[in-house]
């Protein structure tokens, strides 16, 4: 679905990521993890086209992303950012914006199909009852659900999310991630997500890409990536890793300074 080959991109001389190669298979759920400043967001912006590809290439469904127009890109991948939307716009109008990549310059109004697709995803994300409210009236979690509904209304093949849960409490974190998981398993949507929280990453993703210093440090299944040696090396922090008894996924425990001193 998404294949990245030897990608190099960045902000001029200041910072760049290089030699990035990995692929996200159709129907996959991949997480990008790494410390602050490791290049996660740079990679994300490289994939979305915000940053120019300096070397290498990005293949979307086998096609070089460079030759795709902005509109074609928006039809095949939808993006949810961590930034929460506060615009003075109703939820329904906001979600309908997802149909923009399909409207021509001269089509001023949404047609029936646009409305039925928007309604379908408003229901799926469980915010149908809020659709006449304004975005700024919603809670943080609801806003993020609306952003996902808008992204789905683009009917993308690939859903890109940049820390969609970073401003949310755990109830809403789990609500949003469960929804993304459902979209992944039930609709077969391919998901690529930056996520800070290693435990959420291990629990939900089926593949992890660990970034460090503008390069990929390790890439593999969660249990391969989330081991204490790797995490201590990359994050420079002492941790303990165990397996969640129910889900059999890896869990990372932090060790506080006091405990660490006592043990020494």
């Amino acid at each position: 679905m998404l294949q990245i080959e030897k990608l190099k991109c960045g902000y001029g001389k200041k910072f760049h990521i290089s030699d990035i190669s990995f692929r996200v298979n159709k129907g996959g759920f991949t997480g990008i993890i790494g410390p602050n400043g490791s290049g996660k967001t740079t990679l994300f912006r490289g994939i979305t086209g915000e940053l120019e590809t300096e070397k290498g290439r990005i293949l979307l469904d086998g096609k070089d992303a460079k030759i795709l127009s902005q509109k074609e890109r928006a039809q095949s991948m939808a993006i949810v950012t961590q930034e929460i939307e506060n615009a003075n716009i109703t939820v329904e109008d906001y979600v309908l914006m997802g149909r923009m990549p399909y409207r021509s310059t001269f089509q001023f109004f949404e047609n029936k199909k646009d409305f039925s697709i928007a309604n379908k995803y408003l229901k799926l994300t469980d915010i149908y009852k809020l659709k006449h409210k304004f975005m700024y009236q919603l809670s943080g979690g609801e806003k993020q659900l609306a952003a996902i509904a808008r992204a789905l209304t683009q009917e993308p093949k690939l859903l890109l999310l940049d820390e969609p849960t970073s401003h949310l409490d755990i109830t809403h974190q789990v609500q949003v991630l469960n929804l993304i998981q459902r979209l992944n398993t039930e609709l077969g949507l391919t998901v690529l997500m930056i996520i800070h929280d290693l435990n959420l990453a291990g629990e939900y993703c089926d593949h992890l890409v660990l970034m460090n210093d503008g390069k990929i440090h390790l890439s593999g299944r969660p249990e391969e990536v989330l081991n204490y040696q790797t995490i201590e090396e990359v994050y420079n922090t002492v941790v303990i890793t165990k397996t969640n008894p129910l889900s059999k996924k890896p869990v990372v425990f932090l060790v506080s300074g006091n405990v660490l001193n006592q043990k020494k």
Partner: protein
Amino acid sequence: MEEKYKYIRKKYLTWGIFPLLLIFLLFVAFSLSLTIGEIDISVFELPEIIGKKGDSVIYSILNKIRIPRTILGLAVGGGLSLSGVILQGIYRNPLVEPYTLGISGGAALGVALVIVFGLNHMIGNFMLPLAGFIGSLIAIILVYSLSLRNGKIQIQNMLLIGVMISFIVSSAMMFLMSITTAENLHGIVFWTMGSLDEPDMTLIYGTFWASVAGLLISYLFVKPLNAMRLGETKARHLGINTEASIRILFVIASLLTGICVAVAGVIGFVGLIIPHLIRLTVGSDFRVLLISSFLGGGAFLIFSDLLARTVIAPNELPIGVITGIIGGTIFVIVLSRTRMKLN
């Protein structure tokens, strides 16, 4: 009918009815503006007088003075208001108005130079609008080219550069005004205050068609404008070519402002107040906002002009006084009564 379609129908119905109401308002403004003046005409006689043509005094007053002036009011009011709503859209800043970016300053400086060097007496009065337009063009080109970094427009820089150019230009104006004669000073001040009193028919109809063209072209960018309500980045994510859209919209809005300023002088507040009032009434969707701002701005300026020339008749107040005092007051009252968010 299902609940969801009822709501949509209601929205689209509002979008249809609101501009119709404004057209009606514009019609009222037109009728009043044509009938009230030194010689009052009954509204019901209007069709007859216009239909009969001939060379009666009333017909020539209508044909040579009132009709052109009213059309210019529609063109300038509509043009400034449209330009304001577009600029507020691309900068995502509710305080931006057509004059923020130094366009009016450039025009005023051009006109001041012409007056100070007496070019309008030497060459002809057409030098004033010409210099105004050239002045605004120079300001536009300066703001535009100084905001380019690596071939890309830096939108926030652009605003700052525009404001700075505006300051520089107005200081230069003050310099010119301080060294020139009292007569020239009066000419400059008078021009700066703005007026719809323009004898040249070509300029009037030129301005009118430019405004209408601006409105039609801006509708080609209604999708980018709507998407940019979420910000530039998110608009790009929705498949919008924001770079190109911003460039073209900036050029449309600033050219339109340049033309309006060159012909009618600096008429403030229209580009700021009308878009906000319209937004408070029908919401921020550009599909209804563009046309409504245009119609509302036109009607507002025609009414203002009517007041400006009747309040202390036979003398005339500068139209900017009316747009400022009346428009500003209405705006503050409406704003303090509504609790809706501006953006």
